[in-house]
């Protein structure tokens, strides 16, 4: 019998209702979202936003929606998956379930804790009412699906003028207890006025069993807040990730999102920035290096709704073997958003004849006094530069790697945690199959 994931999810919703408090006002939101998902189903290639990414295969997989009790992991087993060189707060989930022994949460001055407690405890109610599902799309299929099943994830609240002492890591492990598992983490990040924080999010599968993660993260940055969000996507080639991020910014806030996509079978990033004030800075950067039959799709949206703001986008991609890369960047400048500066850059290198890149940098501009530009290139490494390096005794492989490092530098240079930068550089080296010292 053919499996239909949509039907399975729709029927699972009733079982899900037994596990949550259905009298909670949040549940109304869930029910509404479920209705939308039921009506819309999974997106198909006929929809413009999903033209180049197909979920057909995933829809035919029999994913378990509720993980049975999971394996406990010892810190030693997974130490290397953390940014262990420095001290961090950690919110760790194993098969979607919070792991208290691996985590390090806090309530001292700031809240770094769990979505499940934020959604249920009365002390958070006011904030949940104010922020939960306020930035996320009510229309988008997969976001609705996540909203319907929203229960667990990271909850981070930074009050006015505060900054956590150390970066926050959100890590998801899949232990492979289930043959195939679907996870739907829901994160909420609230940075009040003048708050500052850094978040690193990553997903790891510990076995080759299939994983589908459909995550939604909402980030609210109030006046003058600074949020740095790093997404490290370096999972096994049996896992798929659909990552929806919605960011609402107020005046003078800065939000920077860096996405590093190296792993996974299918990765889809929906990154949406909504600027609700002036003098906002939004930065979206990404490095994608993939091979085999991997598929990475970056969909970005920056909606300039008020005057005098800026956005910077820079995505670099290196595509080998039979991989496919998609970039669709959309910038909308509203009529009143005069003096907007919006920049978008997408550079790609194809290193295999079987690799494909589809890119669509899109501008929709309704204001006249703006500076908007986008650039997009698809090309190869500079032959002269290659020759130069080789003529100085650097082997071809290393020379290629060096040039690729240079290619990604625009993105790497704005990573503000040196240890993370180092780690990502090493990941890139690993991806390119070279050994290089990167203790910068």
């Amino acid at each position, binding site marked *: 019998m053919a499996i239909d994931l949509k039907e399975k999810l729709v029927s699972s919703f009733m079982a899900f209702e037994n596990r949550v408090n259905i009298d909670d006002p949040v549940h109304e939101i869930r029910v509404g979202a479920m209705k939308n998902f039921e009506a819309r189903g999974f997106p198909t290639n006929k929809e413009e936003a999903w033209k180049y990414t197909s979920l057909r295969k995933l829809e035919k997989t029999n994913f378990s929606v509720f993980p049975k009790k999971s394996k406990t992991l010892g810190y030693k087993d997974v130490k290397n998956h953390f940014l262990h060189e420095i001290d961090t707060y950690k919110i760790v989930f194993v098969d979607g379930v919070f792991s208290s022994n691996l985590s390090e949460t806090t309530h001292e001055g700031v809240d770094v804790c769990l979505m499940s407690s934020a959604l249920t405890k009365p002390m958070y109610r006011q904030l949940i009412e104010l922020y939960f599902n306020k930035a996320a799309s009510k229309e988008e299929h997969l976001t609705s699906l996540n909203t319907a099943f929203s229960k667990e994830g990271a909850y981070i609240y930074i009050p006015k003028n505060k900054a956590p002492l150390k970066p926050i890591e959100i890590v998801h492990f899949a232990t492979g207890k289930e043959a195939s598992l679907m996870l739907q983490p829901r994160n909420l990040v609230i940075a009040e006025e003048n708050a500052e924080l850094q978040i690193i999010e990553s997903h790891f599968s510990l076995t080759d069993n299939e994983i589908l993660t459909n995550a939604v993260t909402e980030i609210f940055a109030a006046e003058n807040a600074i949020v740095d969000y790093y997404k490290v996507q370096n999972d096994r080639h049996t896992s798929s990730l659909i990552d929806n991020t919605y960011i609402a910014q107020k005046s003078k806030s800065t939000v920077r999102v860096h996405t590093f996509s190296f792993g996974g079978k299918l990765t889809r990033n929906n990154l949406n920035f909504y600027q609700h004030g002036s003098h906002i800075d939004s930065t979206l950067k990404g490095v994608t290096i993939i091979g085999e039959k991997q598929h990475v799709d970056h969909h970005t949206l920056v909606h300039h709704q008020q005057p005098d703001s800026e956005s910077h986008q820079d995505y670099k991609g290196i595509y080998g073997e039979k991989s496919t890369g998609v970039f669709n960047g959309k910038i909308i400048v509203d009529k009143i958003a005069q003096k907007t500066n919006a920049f978008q850059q997408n550079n790609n290198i194809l290193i295999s004849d*079987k*690799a494909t*890149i589809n890119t669509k940098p*899109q*501008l929709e501009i*309704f204001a006249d006094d703006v500076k*908007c530009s*986008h650039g997009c290139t*698809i*090309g190869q490494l500079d032959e002269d530069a290659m020759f130069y390096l080789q003529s100085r005794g650097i082997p071809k492989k290393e020379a290629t790697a060096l040039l690729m490092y240079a290619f990604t530098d625009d993105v790497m240079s704005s990573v503000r945690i040196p240890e993370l930068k180092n780690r990502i550089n090493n990941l890139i080296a690993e991806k390119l199959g070279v050994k290089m010292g990167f203790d910068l």
Partner: protein
Amino acid sequence: MAYTEEELKKELETKEYEYGFYTDIESDTLPKGLNEDIVIAISKKKEEPGWMTAWRLQAFQAWKQMEEPEWANVQYKKPDFQDISYYSAPNKKPKYDSLDEVDPELLDTFKRLGISIDEQKKLAGVAVDIVMDSVSVATTFKATLAEKGIIFCSISEAIKEHPELVKKYLGTVVPQKDNYYAALNSAVFSDGSFCYIPKGVRCPMELSTYFRINQAGTGQFERTLVIADEGSYVSYLEGCTAPSRDENQLHAAVVELIALDDAEIKYSTVQNWFPGDKEGHGGVYNFVTKRGLCERNAKISWTQVETGSAITWKYPSCVLKGDNSIGEFYSIAVTNNYQQADTGTKMIHLGKNTRSTIISKGISAGQSQNSYRGLVQVNSRAENARNFSQCDSLLMGNNCGAHTFPYIEAKNKSAQIEHEATTSKIGEDQIFYCNQRGIDTEKAIALIVNGFSKEVLNKLPMEFAVEAQKLLEISLEGSVG
């Protein structure tokens, strides 16, 4: 073969007869609506051979299965396809008896475009006696073309006279089922031009509207087929800088270009159909499918200046099938008032070492919306494909919009693709500088817009370029806020 005045006279007489034929039928216009009988009737009226009727019917069947596309970034009230008459004989009776009756605003525009009185009469639909001047030009044209073996006639004539060529090429670049409007056009096309340039022939003159004015009116479903045989060259001009007050609201034309090995086709368009009034009422819907096929070493170059129509939906494309073939697209799209344009190009790289260049300039003013939509596709066997695209938008006033939708798909590692786009407005300092030197603001804007569009204007044939420049000026008049 010498072409004498006698022959010319005879030709003109036959032409009259051509028209006369239509009047013989009870009504000049077919009843409203579209069904198989109408398609057959159109074909019959045009005295087409059976294969052509079958071809039209095939297209009609396809059209019935299709849905009107909605992806374009334009909003309009959809035409009711059953409320249109798909065939009306070219208007034989002049609309006016003398120029004095013509809308003075229209005449003023003519004057400023520098169009001669005789031509003005023609364009405005005033009764014209045989003007020796322009007819003799036409005659010389015909003689020279015939000498070189060039076939240039209406497509209906070609269907009758050169069925082997039409059969071989019609629908090969734009298949009947290509898209909704192409299917509609294939089923009901009224007339259009046919051009064949034999092997190794360089067409000595621009095949242009000047010549075509003398031909029958082509109606709202125009079909053009240009074939450049091996090693030949032709430059083809379509349209006219003068504003045409066309009554037909829906225009769905299809243009097919075929450039065989080593051939080159240069196709220039100036489109200035009625854009609707200042409040956005009326205006022409222009849904055009234009595509060219390049064989080995061939080159197709599209140049367009789009200033008219309420809705423009047009993507002149190149299929670069042969190795070393070249595709070019140069476009200026101006929208003012409530006009909406969704225009761009497709460059499909199939052969090795294929190259394409896209230069698109969009200027939006008033309440208009101007979109660039383009596709650059490099297929896996298209080694060393090269593309450069540049789309610049200029916004005037804060009620208009400029949009860019470039699709880039590469499947070959040796592909080199660059895309650049900018959106900006005319700098206050630029205007100030001009004012300072005694150039008033309106003139200054015209100057800056001309500079902005220079790269494209340069690609137009000489006399066209001058007119196009003036046209830009007129289109943007009153848009200074």
